[in-house]
């Protein structure tokens, strides 16, 4: 099955090879979709095998190291612990769902779309398994190229400005990160890009401060942490549904992952000193994102701002400096991938039916499309943190950690939870209940009703809804494998 490759290299090369094959199927759109779906399912199967092997505690496994640039002390060094593997699992789960979800939404240039998705998947997996700083940077930057095309070619009316803004914002941070990586790799006068060794022997404090600043800027832009978030609403609104799902579901997590894996372990003293600032920014982001979401009428923009708010909790958990906060932040990444991914799918489905995303245009969908309303309800409640669903299981440890560190942060963050319920459940109520109200064009077009979810759409949403429930009811299934990986942050 793995063609003699080690498991992690296989997980990177499988989507890449599939992308090349899919790109050649330019004249056969349906075949291209099917091939891409098959490849992404093979990838999911491979990740599933690794998940089954992952020990409780989530220690680093499947390490592989090959010479890459021996003169510079850089190597093809991969390895996955619980944190890496959970994020890869989220990626590998979302990609087939995106392919299924885009089945009818992407009608033009089908083969290149799926090739871009698969290249993106390979780069994302690579980012999460790289154990060498230079490797990490290569994958980190490689993510930009397919995403640029996904937004720029298949996006909405303002797609070009959004695509350029996305790339340039990220590049500002990442090129400074490259400088920081160079600084870290040269800490002892010899070149060494190995992450574990860099974490074992951190630099002196003044150098650490500068390196942390560069790393933190790069990751804060990606997260995005307030006030570096301004690229995000535009990119989300203009991206096609599949692009938004992966952007919110996985790409934003690269930033949090970077904080957890690189900024904190490599610059521990500087990180501890900067934590109060990060925490304050995180609380600002939670409240700002929530208030902005409250003011939106465009459902996609609302979900985008809710991402700013939710990612704030992740950073708050880190900044709290407690094991509970860090574990909660890691858990929240997965929970956010599930809920926000599903929300973007739902927004895309509503838009495909009605060609509008305005909350005010809808009303009473629940009577016409009960399955749609039910899925929306479950996901919205998971997203706002109703106990028993996945959002709560992540937010609670973060709030607990924040309370232990600075009670004021916990108060602000809790306020954000309340606001979250107001904006998301408020939108849910306006769209689903009340008198049936549909956008003008629809009443004549589709027999005057909002078509309910088709079987394919149920297949997209059901796994996510099931996961939201499973993670909420039995969080320790994941937490036991995540927590130990990030516990070092706590102390």
């Amino acid at each position, binding site marked *: 099955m793995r063609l003699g490759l080690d498991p992690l290299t296989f997980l990177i090369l499988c989507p890449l090879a599939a992308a090349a094959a899919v790109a050649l199927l330019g004249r056969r759109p349906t075949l291209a979709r099917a091939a891409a779906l098959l490849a992404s399912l093979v990838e999911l199967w491979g990740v599933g095998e690794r998940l089954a092997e992952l020990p409780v505690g989530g220690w680093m496994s499947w390490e592989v190291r090959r010479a890459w640039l021996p003169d510079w002390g850089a190597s093809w060094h991969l390895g996955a612990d619980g944190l890496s593997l959970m994020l890869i699992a989220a990626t590998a789960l979302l990609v087939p769902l995106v392919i299924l979800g885009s089945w009818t939404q992407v009608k033009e240039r089908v083969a290149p779309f799926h090739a871009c998705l698969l290249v993106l998947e390979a780069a994302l997996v690579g980012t999460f398994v790289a154990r060498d700083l230079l490797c990490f940077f290569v994958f980190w930057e*490689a993510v930009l190229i397919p995403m640029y095309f996904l937004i720029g070619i298949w996006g909405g009316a303002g797609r070009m400005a959004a*695509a350029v803004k996305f790339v340039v914002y990220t590049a500002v941070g990442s090129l400074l990160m490259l*400088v920081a990586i160079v600084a870290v790799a040269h800490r002892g006068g010899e070149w060494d890009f190995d992450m574990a060794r860099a974490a074992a022997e951190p630099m002196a404090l003044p150098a650490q401060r500068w390196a942390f600043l560069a790393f933190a800027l790069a990751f804060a832009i990606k997260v995005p942490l307030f006030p570096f978030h301004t690229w995000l609403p535009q990119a989300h609104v203009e991206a096609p549904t599949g692009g938004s799902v992966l952007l919110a579901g996985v790409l934003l997590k690269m930033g949090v992952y970077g904080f957890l894996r690189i900024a904190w372990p490599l610059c521990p003293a500087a990180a501890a000193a900067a934590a109060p600032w990060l925490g304050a920014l995180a609380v600002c982001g939670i409240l700002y994102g929530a208030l902005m979401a409250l003011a939106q009428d465009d459902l996609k923009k609302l979900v985008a701002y809710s991402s700013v708010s939710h990612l704030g909790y992740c950073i708050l958990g880190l900044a709290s400096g407690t094991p509970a906060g860090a574990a909660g932040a890691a858990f929240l990444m997965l929970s956010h991938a599930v809920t926000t991914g599903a929300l973007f799918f739902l927004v895309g489905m509503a838009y495909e039916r009605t060609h509008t995303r305005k909350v005010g245009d809808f009303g009473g969908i629940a009577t016409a499309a009960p399955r749609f309303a039910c899925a929306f309800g479950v996901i919205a409640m998971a997203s706002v943190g109703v106990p028993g669903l996945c959002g709560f299981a992540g937010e609670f440890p973060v709030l607990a950690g924040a309370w232990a560190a600075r009670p004021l942060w916990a108060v602000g963050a809790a306020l954000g939870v309340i606001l979250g319920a107001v904006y998301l459940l408020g939108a849910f109520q306006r769209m689903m209940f009340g008198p049936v109200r549909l956008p003008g064009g629809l009443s004549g077009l589709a027999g005057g009703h909002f078509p309910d979810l088709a079987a394919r759409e149920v297949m997209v949403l059901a796994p996510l809804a099931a996961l939201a429930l499973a993670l909420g009811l039995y969080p320790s299934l994941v937490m036991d494998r995540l927590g130990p990986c990030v516990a070092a942050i706590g102390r």
Partner: protein
Amino acid sequence: MIAGALALAPLLPLASSAAFLLVFDRRLRADGGRAACWLGVLACAASLILLLKVSILPGMAGAGAFGGMLAYDGPAAWIAGTVAAAAAASLLLMPSHAAARGMTCGDTAALTLMAAMGLMLLACAREWLTAILSLETASVCLYALAGADRRRASSAEAALKYFLPGAAASAVLLLGAACWFGATGSTFLSARLPHAPLGAVAAGLLAVGLGFKAGLVPFHGWLPDAYAGAPAPATAFMAAAVKAAAFGALARLAASAGRAEAALAFLAVATMTFANLAGLAQTALKRLLAYSAIAHSGYLMLGVTAYARGADPGALSAYLAAYALLTIGAFAAAGVLESEATGGLEIAQLRGLWRRRPVLALALAFCLLGLAGFPPTVGFLAKASVFTAAWSKGLGWLVVAAALNSVVALGYYLKPVRAMFLEDLPEGVEAVASESAGPSTGSAISVACAVLGVVLGILPSIWL
């Protein structure tokens, strides 16, 4: 004497084939100069093989030949190899470009070969008179090459704008060499320059002259016009080969002059900042690539500054080779498109190119992303190698400046990519590259450069 003959061996195929072409050009004109170009490609290949053989001979790197006037150390061999490869690529591109634009290419082939010979000699020269003579040999040929497209005014303008400041720069170089001799009593590059004012004047004049050839700000004024007006194959050669040879000489000058760090750093920052900001305003593809060439001179100055502080020259040669590969790929694609366009090649004309010519569009995009320094292309490794070299010599602030500059550069490298992939051709704008045109050598070279750029970027152990 044997050493001398061996040292000249890599140059012989170039010189002899150039002489042959000059004499028998009329006989070879029957097929529009195709045979002449192929002969030139063979000569370049022979020269490359001889270079590989000669540069590993014992003593060739250190003592050299002719009492040390010529020596093939690591950087010299890299640069000479880059020059020969660039000449071969330019000659391969020439016939179809010439046919499309109604040029003859027998004489351009001879000029390219002579220029390549001069630049290879410059790469291994260890003495100022040899260096200046070889540079002048190359420059005279290059002025004529820039004006090779005789039917177009833009080409004549390019030649004139290249020639006039170029001649002045040559005079400055000569004066500098004279001062060098006055200050040190020797014309060898290895002579230690004394602290006396004359030494500083010598180093300054030589740096100005070489900075002109390398396209450093503020001596870059000729470059955009020359690059935009010259035929694309000639531009590809100029961009790749002249830069490589000029930077080889600059690096040696910087290393033996010493104490000029502030000036070098200033040139680096001024060059990259100015070129990247000016690049943002460009609307024509070749002009944009010209500003990209200037900006890369700035990044290269970072490598030169590090080399002056004692860094390994490997980073600089690697950067020159990687830059040559990507820039030839980009100009090859520009040449294909230019030969199908009527006027200058505006970026707006590239809109929707992806639908008409997917392979060519992808190749150009990868070359541009490589020039922008995106992984996993070779451009990233080149940039990282210069950054690491500069960092290890304590030039942290220069590295930060270069990193910020790379972000600005993204703004214009993405412009053609955006036009080709993201935008559709509106009504009323004349498109270049209709679907009917079949594959050409230009697209083949562009694709080869893009593929090599990615493969060498992923597997650096092959070449680094």
